[in-house]
């Protein structure tokens, strides 16, 4: 029986087979999905900003890529995952509104994606799939049975990574 576990904005969850993690309507945020194919432990974080050290208000670790990654890894290991076996998939990081100016806040999706990729490299977690960018929202479902990532959009189709 598949149970759908919802991950909210600035939130993270870890589950074991047969749990399915989902986050709805990702825009500029990133869904970071980590998976251990042997223990079938899966984790998902819905991060909003790249770096907790750049912000004074950093009380919620799940809001930032750097702190969310550390907590999620820890939680996954507690649930039986082995760090060296983990693989990663990421989605989101869109630019919902376009402006011609160089305003950094407008490019937050891109900056989020870059930060997450460099964190994965740092933790030596291979990035198996990357569906980021564009100007549209994504709903994602991450299956702990096989590590498949389903991506649904409005007007840009459905795909499985």
């Amino acid at each position, binding site marked *: 029986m598949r149970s759908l576990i919802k991950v*909210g*904005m*600035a*939130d993270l969850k870890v589950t074991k087979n047969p749990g399915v993690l989902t986050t*709805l*309507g*990702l*825009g*500029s*945020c990133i869904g970071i999905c980590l998976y251990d194919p042997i223990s079938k432990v899966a984790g998902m974080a819905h991060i*909003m*900003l790249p770096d907790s050290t750049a*912000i*004074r*208000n*950093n*009380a*919620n670790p799940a*809001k930032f890529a750097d702190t969310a990654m550390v907590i999620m890894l820890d939680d996954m290991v507690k649930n039986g995952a082995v760090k060296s076996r983990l693989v990663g998939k990421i989605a989101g990081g*869109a630019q*919902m*509104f*376009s*402006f011609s*100016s160089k*305003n950094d*806040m407008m490019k*937050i999706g891109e900056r989020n994606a870059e930060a997450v990729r460099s964190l994965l490299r740092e933790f030596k977690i291979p990035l198996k799939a990357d569906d980021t960018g564009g*100007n*549209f*929202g*994504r*709903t994602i479902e991450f299956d702990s049975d096989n590590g498949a990532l389903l991506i649904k959009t*409005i007007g840009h189709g459905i795909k499985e990574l």
Partner: protein
Amino acid sequence: MSDYFDRVNNNVVLDVLKEIGNIGAGNAATALAKMINKKVDMTVPKVNIMDFATVPEMLGGEETEVCGIFFKIEGDMDGTIMFVLSSVSAHTLINLLMPGMGTGEFDDFSLSALQEIGNILSGSYISSLSMLTGLNIQISIPSLAVDMAGAILSVPAIQFGLIGDKILIIENDFIEEMGGESVQGYFFLIPDIDSYEIMFKSLGIEI
């Protein structure tokens, strides 16, 4: 800064924001009435400071299709303003403006009309704020997106995310009096951190 919205979340500040919302939305309703050449009524706006996670529910859930019309604010204070409405409300609005055009599908024509409605509403809102504060504030050209509520709202949520875990929303109901059709619109006024202080200071409030 972690207690920023705790400090903002007191009655005086909320009353001021509500009053800005009231006057701004009143002007917006007048502008809308002129545009559609009908009497438009407006309920007293609701000012809410909410958790991020609960915001999309107001619009029917994270995956509900909504329209967001987004502007940068420039001048004596910087920030952004976004006007969001459900696609259903957007079609009602297009129909009020151009009877027969709000067919349930967005085409280039209806999208550009919507962009212009957003422009007029946000413009009147910002000019009220400018008058109340005495600050010189302008808005940029609009940028429109039709997508999932969660995705559209991630933009103001991230900007508010820089100063706290809450988000400030002003909800307006516009009602066209003859037909009784109602349009719910939501304004997200997001001054940059420093501009928040400038805005309140110009209104004579210390926070």
